């Protein structure tokens, strides 16, 4: 249940930041700050575990601060947000009390999605070239 709540909060906060940044062009810092502040005020009132989910919302907003050159498609952002939720739950006892932990989780997930996308693109191009040479 906690995983589902964490993923839901990650997707909600991340996609809201993505919308503010990419669609409303509010700037990455302002969008992330607004989402983080709203999450800090609203989530503890909504859920019993809401207070524990606030850092997740902040972390998700950092993921969505990525530029088009890193996470160009919406599905890439969604994938990075899901990975961030998994890593957030797994990291509950690591870096406890260290500021920047959420950002580190975000950076790891953005790099992982960006790296995997590059590999898949490279492999699919090689496969396409191979099959094109056969026929």
């Amino acid at each position, binding site marked *: 249940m906690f995983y589902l709540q964490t993923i839901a909060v990650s997707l909600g906060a991340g996609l809201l930041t993505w919308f503010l940044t990419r669609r409303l062009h509010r700037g990455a810092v302002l969008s992330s700050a607004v989402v983080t502040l709203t999450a800090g005020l609203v989530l503890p009132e909504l859920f019993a575990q809401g207070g524990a989910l606030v850092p997740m919302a902040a972390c998700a907003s*950092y993921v969505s601060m990525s*530029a*088009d050159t890193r996470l160009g498609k919406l599905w890439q952002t969604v994938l990075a947000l899901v990975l961030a939720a998994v890593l957030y739950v797994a990291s509950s006892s*690591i870096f406890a009390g260290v500021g920047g932990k959420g950002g580190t989780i975000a950076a790891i997930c953005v790099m992982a*999605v*960006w790296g995997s996308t590059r*590999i898949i693109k490279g492999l699919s191009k090689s496969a396409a070239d191979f099959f094109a040479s056969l026929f």
Partner: protein
Amino acid sequence: MYRKLISLLLLAAVGIVLLAGDLAGARGWAFFALVGITAFFGIGLAAHFFALKKNPGGEEFGNCLPIMAVAVAGVAATWCLSVKLGLNTAVASGLVGLLAALVLPGKLAAVAYTASFAGMSSLAVLTGLPMVICAGVLVGGFYILALPVYEGIGGKLGTMAAGAVLATVLIFSLLGGI
């Protein structure tokens, strides 16, 4: 290139320490998910390294003094809001980030937001004002050093902040041990 390499090593080191800690405590499917994330993170770092090697790019240091001043003020403001006034750390960081985005020009707003992440540290980590000031100076330094290398990566500001906080703890524990 050395500057870029050092900056990339900072990102790699902070990320690897976090992932290693996670892997040590993970069981079942979470372990395999973390192995996958670690592998792809490594691939991303390698791809980023080769992209940086191909593109030397301009390296702008800018004016360091305002960056340092804003960084120290950002860490101190967030730390005071959360530790002294008892605000939720995310609310404190969000307030500082929002104020910075509304008042400061873009680059300095990003510095203040980075600093606010370091200021989210608990009293057990940043135990007093000297550590807060040291963390602020390091945040400013890492920002100047690493920003062009981390361009476009969401979470880069938090990674710099985490690196600065961990370095502060290391420095003060070494000083305490002398």
